[in-house]
């Protein structure tokens, strides 16, 4: 090829500085552009508008007797709704915060003290704790027990023992009237 190509004259020092600048500037713009172009792809994997739209459910709680629980589905997740007994409420309120791994007063977890509404997903790795049905094991603190890796929750759904780091989450909900709640 040497016989056809004309050899470029060797770069002067000034030229080299200019080339370095152009190289860095072009690479920077290129990298930012690539990053911006990647974003639509990444964001397309986030929840879509229709998934976000099914975000609230209304539940009639009148059939739930004292000491009974039901499980409803909200955003594909189980939500535990329990009408607690006097005794359960008393136990939940009397625990001192210093005994808790994730300290939170019972009063901060409920809107009406007999109604406990929580997301029924273990905060460890996402199993569904047992304790909703009468025959289920309820763990050492009389609330819920996650069989996957042995997390014990109390009658306020707070983590008391086992690998889970946090209390069961409380979803956003409002009482529409005495017997209906709207979750989400």
């Amino acid at each position, binding site marked *: 090829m040497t016989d056809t190509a004309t050899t470029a004259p060797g770069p002067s020092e000034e030229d080299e500085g200019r080339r370095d600048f152009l190289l860095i500037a072009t690479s920077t713009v290129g990298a930012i552009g690539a990053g911006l172009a990647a974003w639509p792809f990444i964001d397309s*994997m986030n929840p879509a508008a229709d*998934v976000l739209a099914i975000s609230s459910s209304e539940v009639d709680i009148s059939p739930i007797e004292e000491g009974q629980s039901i499980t409803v*589905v909200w955003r594909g997740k189980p939500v535990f709704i329990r009408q607690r007994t006097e005794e359960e409420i008393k136990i939940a309120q009397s625990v001192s915060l210093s005994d808790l791994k994730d300290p939170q007063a019972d009063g901060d977890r409920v809107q009406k003290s007999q109604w406990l509404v929580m997301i029924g997903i273990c905060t460890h790795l996402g*199993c*569904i704790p047992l304790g909703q049905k009468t025959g289920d094991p309820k763990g050492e603190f009389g609330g819920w027990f996650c*069989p*996957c*890796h042995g997390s014990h929750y109390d009658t306020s759904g707070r983590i008391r023992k086992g690998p889970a780091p946090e209390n069961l989450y409380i979803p956003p909900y409002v009482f529409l009237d005495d017997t209906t709640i709207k979750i989400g």
Partner: protein
Amino acid sequence: MAIEFKNPVLKWIEYRLPIFSFINDSVGTNYPTPRNLNYWWNFGSLAGVVLGILIVTGIFLAMNYTANVDYAFISVERIMRDVNYGWLLRYLHMNGGSMFFILVYIHMFRGMYYGSYKAPRELLWMIGVFLLLAMMATAFVGYVLPWGQMSFWGATVITNLFSAIPLIGESIVTWLWGGFSVDNPTLNRFFAFHYLLPFIIFGLVVVHIWALHVHKSNNPLGIDPKGPEDMIPFHPYYTIKDIFGMAVFMVFFLWFVFFAPDFFGEADNYIEANPMVTPTHIVPEWYFLPFYAILRAFTVDFLWIPAKLWGVIGMFGSVLILLFLPWLDRSKVRSAKFRPYYRMAFWIFFANSLVLGYVGSQPPEGFLITLGQWATGYYFAYFVIIIPLVSLLEPARVLPDSIAQAVMKPVAAETGEGR
């Protein structure tokens, strides 16, 4: 080296695309191979064959599979009952996955025993670690596709691991799911990844073999070949040995396919996924058990890091630490044959991996928690304490002068090991 063909068609092709000489230089008479390779050197090519079987059976399964939460489970049942030979395709694919891991784990232990990760093969070894990671990802998303109870809950537990990452963990999990739980968007993307990843694995295998062919195979003595008397051509010597090994392996593989097709599986995965009911005992597939045991070994918070995050760090770290093995081992001697202390530590490591696998398969209760913690301790100590120390303190054994010298007469008594 160009081949001189008489046949005008072959000659025409070879002149324009030297594919025949490429094949001959890669797996033919012009690829020199150490003369003393034993059967542990069969497992790489076997893994390649199984990758091929998985890709072919997978593509045919995909023709009848539906990636939708309402149809996935029944589409797999339809493959099993109604599609002609669907049961065979699926059992080949399912058991092929397990075989792939058996072969690759043996292949890796082979590399560790004979020091194949040492210079100049560090990068070859590291590409292998990336292959293992890609295989794990493929198998994990593949197991979700039949949408049984274990599919669903395995996916839930493993994707939830990312929630341990501080601050951005929850957003990452939502992003992985494409929703607020493992659901239809998750199944769809997992199918897309499951179709894609095997081809990435294939590409990595090409690079792996490219690196292999630069410095050629290590060998059971771990010494560099000194001259042509140490080598034999790949074809016909190792083509025939690989084919023989393949026949033996196929008997093993097909025995499971035809006589115990669900041996490696979980009965719970024949129950359709139910997001409202967790199975009492969630176990991953057998090839993840040692890593699952490491994940669960961390039960207390320390150094300001919660136990859950430690578990995740430990689990990923247990694979990633393999990347550093070439530099953790300071010994210049490759083969464990000449390294008595290393050999002992290696076999304990091997047994320890089985212990971890057992612990991972059991519910975490009582004594097993402690056992899992000690085994996890040995796993990491092996890499960061034992290997570096042994490689510095070990008395060196006399290495044979050459491969030919060592294999043409029985290995001298100084190695303490006859052949």
